[in-house]
């Protein structure tokens, strides 16, 4: 049974003119790292809040269909219960902060799980080290910059060791190096969990996700391998004129094809491009 299942899910916020999500049927599996991409208002964040239980327990609206997390209906399970398996980073991370100090913030959920003091301390240490925030343990959250706060929120989710991670624009306040480092860390840990990342930045998603879900006006318009999406997206005459949001490496593969090179698969990362180039260099035009 997949950790997350959605069956004919539709949702409309109270007072809204139209649906935020329409007839979503999909599943997310263990070991998957899924990127969710789409414009503002496409339903990306709503999809996550249907998994972590904020919909329907916190947000009122019209919900039809089913969402199951580890076999349990989300509608029948309080968010606190779901929190034992689901770790969430909200887009509005600054207001997500609960603790006064860094240590308290990272440990918050762990306190509620009844772990021993030693285990909590170990997890906090570990999470802070991963985020490069070791010396900040006793600092007040208020003293941190936006980027540092976001790293601490991520540390909290890492410390929770949740099987399901729902990350909504998790690196919006971070610079490019920190962003790449965090995405690589998440990729290294994907085996034992289900990681779903919402981002408007395909350049961040493509190198690390194994599956891309594209949402437009609340509906899934693509769900599959990232490379195939780029191929279709670029070959579509209407969108090719814009090439909005397409990572430069993917555009590079398009230009190389135009120059007569045989590029069987669109590049999703700099490393893929590099390996193709080296392989062509060794193998020749043939």
């Amino acid at each position, binding site marked *: 049974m997949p950790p997350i299942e959605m069956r004919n899910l539709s949702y409309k916020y109270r007072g809204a003119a139209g649906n935020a999500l329409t007839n979503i049927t999909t599943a997310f599996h263990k070991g998957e790292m899924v990127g969710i991409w789409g414009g503002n208002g496409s339903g990306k964040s709503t999809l996550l809040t249907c998994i972590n*239980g904020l919909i329907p327990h*916190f947000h009122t609206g019209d919900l039809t269909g089913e969402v199951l997390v580890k076999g349990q209906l989300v509608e029948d399970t309080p968010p606190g219960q779901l929190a034992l398996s689901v770790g969430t980073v909200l887009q509005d991370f600054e207001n*997500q902060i*609960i603790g006064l*100090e860094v240590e*308290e913030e990272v440990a918050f959920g762990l306190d509620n799980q009844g772990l021993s003091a030693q285990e*909590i301390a170990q997890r906090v240490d570990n999470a802070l080290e991963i985020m490069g925030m070791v010396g900040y343990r006793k*600092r*007040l959250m*208020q003293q941190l910059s936006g980027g540092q706060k976001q790293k601490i929120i991520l540390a909290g989710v890492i410390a929770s060791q949740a099987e399901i991670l729902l990350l909504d624009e998790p690196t919006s306040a971070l610079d490019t190096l920190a962003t790449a480092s965090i995405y690589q860390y998440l990729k290294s840990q994907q085996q034992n969990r289900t990681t779903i990342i919402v981002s408007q930045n395909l350049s961040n998603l493509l190198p690390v996700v194994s599956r891309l879900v594209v949402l437009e006006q609340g509906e899934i318009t693509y769900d599959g391998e990232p490379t195939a999406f780029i191929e279709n997206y670029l070959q579509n005459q209407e969108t090719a004129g814009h090439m909005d949001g397409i990572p430069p490496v993917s555009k590079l593969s398009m230009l190389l094809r135009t120059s007569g090179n045989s590029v069987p698969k669109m590049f999703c990362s700099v490393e893929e491009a590099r390996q193709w180039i080296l392989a062509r260099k060794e193998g020749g035009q043939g």
Partner: protein
Amino acid sequence: MRDNDDTANLLHSIAPLPKLLTSVLVFTAAIAVSQLQYLGGLVCLEIILILYAMPWGQAKGIIIGMAICAVFVGSLQYLFLPWSEVLLIVLRMMAMALIFPPMLATMRMRDLRDTLVYQLKIPYDYAFMFTTALRYVPDLLNDAHYIMEAQSCRGCDFKHGNPWQRIKRYMAILAPLVMHGLNKAETLAMSMELRGYDISAVKPATVQPLRSIDVAVSAAMIVAFAVFVGFGKA
């Protein structure tokens, strides 16, 4: 609240319960006592405690802020009352207020909450609400600062103009601050749900039992209170 262990002193090592007790006793003593020299002595002790317990920058801010309040209140009272009574009122006000900064500054919010819940048996939700409200004060002050900056950049001059104009301009801080605060509260509530706030009242592993020094300090404070009020009321 406590910053980091670099500035830790003896007061930091004392548990929250004796500190809460001290705050309540000093607050009560300030109300009960009516002799100027006792109140003056209490205020001096509190200032020494502030200077000892808190970083110089914070201590300076509190002392100056309190002095400004004292002058303001004293000036108003002087319109209606004789000097001696004005001094009594001002000293009492200072004595009641100045005990809280050094006590709160040497307490960690989590320890305070645990003390309220597990030692004073206050329901967890109320204790959490109290400590969260306390910690939001610096957050909202921070937000007010950013809002003030943003509005200044739209030509809103908070420093010049007559009082009525300046009050009107402060609406440009107050209104977004309130909206921001409401938004903050909603996101915080969501975040608490998502971190399992409502799972159970499992006793957190971080609650520290009272040690002999905590008991000794508490006992000493009770005795000091009794002596102080006994002499000070005479």
